[in-house]
């Protein structure tokens, strides 16, 4: 393939070569089932245990509180459905936000069909929920608060510490989808009063198909997958040993590099934002300017549509994503962009560029030059732009 400029690290990341190296022996050499009694199985169990310890330590948790899943969506589904079931005697009210990932939103909609009530908190124009509104939404029958750590589209980081404090004060469980934040922001589940947390390996240069749900000791959550005794009998199925080993390696690398890497990425991010704002007219930055993931850039370009923009970028070897209807598989643009108050028409013209550790300034320069040309070209054939100029 030609050289690509990969600016879609919020979608997925390149698996780090060190991660692949760490995984390889567990495919062909140490392939035993971690539940088997012989030494070959023990080798796998040892690897899983070591990985679990490492991952637990990265968020200040105990190893017994980490439950491996097939990814972030499964972790979100588990947290919500199982908490709803386990705490239904206490109540049937759940609080979440309008900008959650679909793994949370669609699970909430499913729970509504089962008779649960869900409050979807609004966000402000930057994508922040209001702790006051959260407090006001809590009722005696509220059993769960699920608010994402940082938004996958616009990169806004929610006031997790305040949310955790409010949840704790009201004795309501607090789950956070940290799929985008884990590996980019230091997380301490005790300090932040987080009871459950979802994460996924492939967002931090780990392999696809492996994630975890952190469940604080004492939270009564039922099994999600019934079967064998794996994951303390709560999530049956032969352990994804290679995935778990790869995940731990990715966590190790990302924790080591976090401070330096995110500092560098934030500088590049701000450089990219500044150039686009200065050089492309009628553009609008989406998301909070400072309370923002270090790798996230999200813009709307008026008068043009996102999918066209993506295809033209792809023709120049640049990978990005958009919240337009055409990319969401429906007629509506991204629910996140609508929630921050954008008009449909403007939301259709969104572009998300998410940087990675390997992103260079040169790549961003190339991208800005390409963008300028593409946006101008698409505007020249846009009837909306024609009307605007008229």
């Amino acid at each position: 393939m030609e050289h690509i400029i990969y600016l879609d690290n919020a979608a997925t990341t390149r698996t780090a070569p060190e991660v692949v190296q760490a995984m390889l022996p567990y495919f062909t050499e140490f392939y035993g089932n971690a539940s088997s009694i012989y030494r070959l199985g023990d080798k796998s169990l040892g690897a899983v245990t070591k990985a679990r310890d490492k991952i637990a330590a990265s968020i200040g948790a105990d190893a017994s509180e980490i439950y491996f899943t097939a990814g972030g969506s499964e972790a979100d589904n588990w947290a919500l459905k199982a908490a709803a079931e386990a705490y239904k005697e206490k109540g049937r009210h759940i609080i979440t936000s309008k900008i959650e990932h679909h793994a949370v939103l669609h699970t909430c909609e499913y729970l509504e069909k089962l008779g649960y009530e869900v409050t979807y908190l609004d966000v402000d124009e930057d994508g922040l929920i209001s702790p006051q509104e959260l407090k006001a939404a809590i009722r005696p029958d509220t059993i769960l608060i699920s608010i994402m750590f940082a938004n996958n589209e616009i990169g806004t980081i929610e006031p997790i510490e305040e949310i955790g404090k409010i949840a704790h004060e009201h004795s309501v469980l607090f789950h956070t989808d940290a799929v985008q934040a884990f590996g980019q922001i230091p997380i301490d589940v005790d300090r932040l009063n987080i009871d459950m947390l979802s994460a996924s390996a492939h967002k931090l240069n780990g392999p696809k198909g492996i994630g975890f749900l952190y469940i604080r000791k004492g939270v009564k959550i039922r099994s999600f997958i019934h079967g064998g005794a794996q994951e303390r009998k709560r999530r049956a199925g032969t352990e994804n040993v290679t995935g778990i080993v790869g995940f731990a390696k990715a966590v190790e690398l990302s924790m080591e590099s976090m401070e330096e890497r995110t500092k560098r990425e934030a500088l590049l991010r701000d450089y990219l934002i500044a150039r686009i704002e200065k050089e492309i007219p009628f553009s609008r930055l989406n998301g909070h300017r400072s309370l923002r993931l270090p790798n996230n850039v999200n813009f709307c370009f008026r008068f043009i549509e996102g999918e066209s923009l993506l295809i033209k970028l792809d023709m120049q070897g640049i990978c990005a994503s958009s919240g337009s209807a055409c990319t969401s598989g429906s007629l509506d643009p991204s629910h996140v962009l609508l929630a921050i108050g954008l008009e449909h028409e403007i939301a259709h013209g969104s572009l998300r560029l998410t940087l990675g550790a390997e992103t260079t300034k040169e790549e961003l320069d190339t991208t800005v030059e390409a963008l300028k040309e593409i946006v101008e070209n698409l505007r020249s054939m846009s009837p909306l732009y024609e009307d605007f100029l008229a």
Partner: protein
Amino acid sequence: MYSEKVMDHFEHPRNVGEIENASGVGTVGNAKCGDIMRIYLDIDENQVIRDCKFKTFGCGAAVATSSMATELVKGKTVKEALKVTNKAVMEALDGLPPVKVHCSLLAEEGIHAALWDYAEKNGISIEGLSKPKSDISEDEEEEEY
């Protein structure tokens, strides 16, 4: 996801632009859904479409169907142009993904809207042409697709 033909028409759209003092102009679609097409027709006294141009706000398929639709009606009589259906546009593009079929409907509708405008301007009625539904200059809130 898209056929080579679609990509070709997206990358090198035919007939992009405006026609000054056009015989008919039609705008269809809805910014809310993310597609707006504007078709310009230049029609001579024998009711032959001499020229056709378009402007489109929308996805790759919206641009490609506009481009193909303008190609298909150019040189045709008004009557023949009416027979250029969304299916004909799709076939000429070697197909569209199912979620993009509405783009081809919009292209057909766009041609009809421009023909309707032409008929109104000239006080004539074109057999088989009914008032296009999704002309956004008529109804901003129309959501048909």
